[in-house]
């Protein structure tokens, strides 16, 4: 046994391949039961959405002035989740941060499926979904043309670009790994990997072009990721509504997005590395570094909350002050304080190295981060609309079963897609781990005391 641990201290290229290929082996009964459970949640969400399309938005808790509520909260939440993928895969790539290699594929996959999930919510939110194409800019006989000065149209362009570029970035990085998988596969998997890898053989010419396109895509994805959540934040900040109309929204939303995204990466990767037996590739050292990003972004958003409150006090605008008083101490004030606890207080535990290196603690904290960030979006969106400038219109929104089930269904849809991808595609980049094998060995050595203790 000791010898096995000794061997793992010096993983070779072949060890990396074996670990990833083992994770891609056909799933057992438990795996398929999990996928079936996710599919069941998805189906449930689709049934409730169908009912909503048939009966109209009256089946939800929507009503004046809460015409934006859970669906837009879900939209912003999922777009936010997508951001850590690009942070880890593109921004950290440009900065040559070595710990990203083991986790970036997982984060990037999460990005693509999170944007796909987010893209559903503007459609779900529409009362008459069959008219969604009215948002697409093309000359038509109805004399309708999108107003390019509207943040909603910016959003359409930003999200569709983000989905496309994230998919291209993920796919480009996958090509060499799919070629590797092709060589050891048989049957329909071999055919699939042969087609998807485009006959990649890793010649110097191919690598030269690959390195260039990957670098440029990373260079494009970096400002894109910052722009997308800024644009999403302007959906709110460009309006005159107290609680939304704030110049801090763009950086505040971007930091929050990275925070929530890294939280969900932890939520996904901690059980995944255990179940797929890739603990030798995704080590405690990698999780420790990811936890530090969560901690840093938690501090940034705590600062953003404080700045936002300070600006409200500093302007002495009575309506803004009233809105924030309602946010803190109103009928739904408990949601704000839960949000503060989840996003500001609980992540402070990550200052303790022993917690950062304990997977159970990290997993629990990541769940709190996810809850906290969903609540943040709900508090901003539904909370600010509830208390607008006309007190006679005030109404605190409470979701009905339809919104709850559709939200749960979106988690099922996301997890189902992610789980299928993780089983059929290389969920850890073999190429990049081999390129930085020295860092992987460093990670394994750093992790050795924890493994030994475990």
């Amino acid at each position: 046994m000791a010898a096995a641990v000794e061997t793992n201290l010096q993983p070779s290229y072949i060890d990396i391949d074996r670990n990833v290929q083992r994770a891609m082996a056909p799933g057992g009964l438990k795996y398929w039961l999990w996928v079936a459970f996710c599919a069941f949640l998805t189906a449930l969400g689709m049934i409730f959405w169908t009912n909503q399309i048939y009966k109209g938005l009256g089946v939800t808790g929507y009503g004046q002035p809460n015409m934006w509520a859970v669906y837009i909260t879900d939209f912003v939440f999922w777009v936010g989740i997508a951001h850590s993928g690009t942070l880890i895969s593109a921004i950290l790539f440009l900065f040559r941060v070595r710990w990203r290699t083991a986790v970036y594929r997982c984060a990037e996959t999460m990005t693509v499926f999170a944007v796909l999930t987010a893209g559903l919510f503007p459609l779900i939110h529409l009362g008459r979904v069959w008219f969604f194409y009215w948002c697409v800019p093309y000359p038509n006989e109805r004399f309708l043309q999108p107003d390019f000065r509207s943040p909603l149209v910016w959003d359409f362009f930003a999200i569709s670009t983000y989905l496309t570029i994230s998919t291209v970035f993920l796919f480009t990085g996958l090509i060499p790994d799919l070629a590797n998988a092709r060589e050891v596969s048989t049957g329909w998997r071999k055919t699939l990997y042969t087609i998807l890898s485009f006959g990649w053989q890793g010649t110097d010419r191919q690598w030269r072009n690959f390195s260039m396109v990957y670098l440029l895509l990373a260079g494009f994805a970096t400002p894109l990721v910052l722009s997308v959540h800024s644009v999403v934040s302007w959906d709110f900040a460009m309006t005159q509504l107290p609680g939304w109309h704030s110049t801090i929204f763009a950086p505040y939303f971007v930091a929050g997005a990275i925070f929530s995204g890294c939280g969900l990466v932890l939520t996904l990767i901690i059980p995944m590395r255990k179940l797929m037996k890739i603990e030798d590739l995704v080590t405690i050292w990698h999780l420790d570094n990811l936890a530090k990003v969560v901690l840093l972004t938690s501090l940034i958003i705590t600062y953003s909350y404080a700045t936002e409150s300070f600006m409200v006090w500093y302007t002495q605008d009575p309506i803004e002050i009233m809105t924030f008083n309602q946010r803190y101490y109103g009928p739904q004030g408990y949601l704000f304080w839960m949000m503060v606890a989840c996003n500001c207080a609980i992540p402070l535990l990550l200052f303790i190295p022993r917690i950062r290196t304990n997977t159970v603690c990290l997993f629990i904290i990541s769940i709190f981060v996810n809850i906290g960030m969903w609540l943040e979006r709900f508090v901003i969106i539904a909370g600010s609309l509830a208390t607008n400038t006309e007190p006679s219109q005030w109404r605190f929104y409470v979701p009905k079963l339809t919104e709850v089930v559709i939200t749960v269904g979106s988690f099922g849809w996301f997890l189902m897609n992610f789980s299928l991808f993780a089983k059929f595609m290389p969920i850890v980049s073999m190429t990049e781990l081999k390129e930085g094998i020295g860092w992987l060995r460093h990670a394994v050595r750093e992790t050795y005391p924890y493994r030994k203790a475990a």
Partner: protein
Amino acid sequence: MSDGIALISTFSSDDECAQGIEALHRAHVHDFSAFAPFPSEKILEATSEARGQGRSPVRWWVLTGGITGILTAIALTVGTSYEWNLNVGGRPIASIPPYIIIMFELMILMGGLSGLLGFLFHSCLPAFDSAAGYRSRFGADKFGLVVRCAENEVSRLESLLRDAGAEDIAREAVITQGVPSHH
């Protein structure tokens, strides 16, 4: 009838493979192809120097795509504003600052997509026929250097590659297509 011999040398590290490429360069042999399981900077630098190549032309595809994206966005936003113009209190019909967001997004979109196309084009992908000398281990844990040469050069190049650290050298007759040209 054979077009020559392909020497398929296998290396266990990118250092040795790069040394092999440098040795070939010094011997004025440039009809070779290197295979690696990851984008090794050492190998890429050595091949670029041996062949006198600059940086990948993919960057021009990205630049062209990006500029096309910006121009498309200008045409879309400004063009449609004038086509469906609406004078609101004398404000500009085409308001450039908000349109910059659309220009930015389309620049990224088209730049990224054309970059992908450029990458596939210059890498000769898709290509479902194996290049001469390709071995599946070159995608896993070994580095390969495939040299195309005349039969009378075989022993000289073999010893040159062995000196660079090749752990195994195999010979293969090149019948029709040899190592793809890199120029």
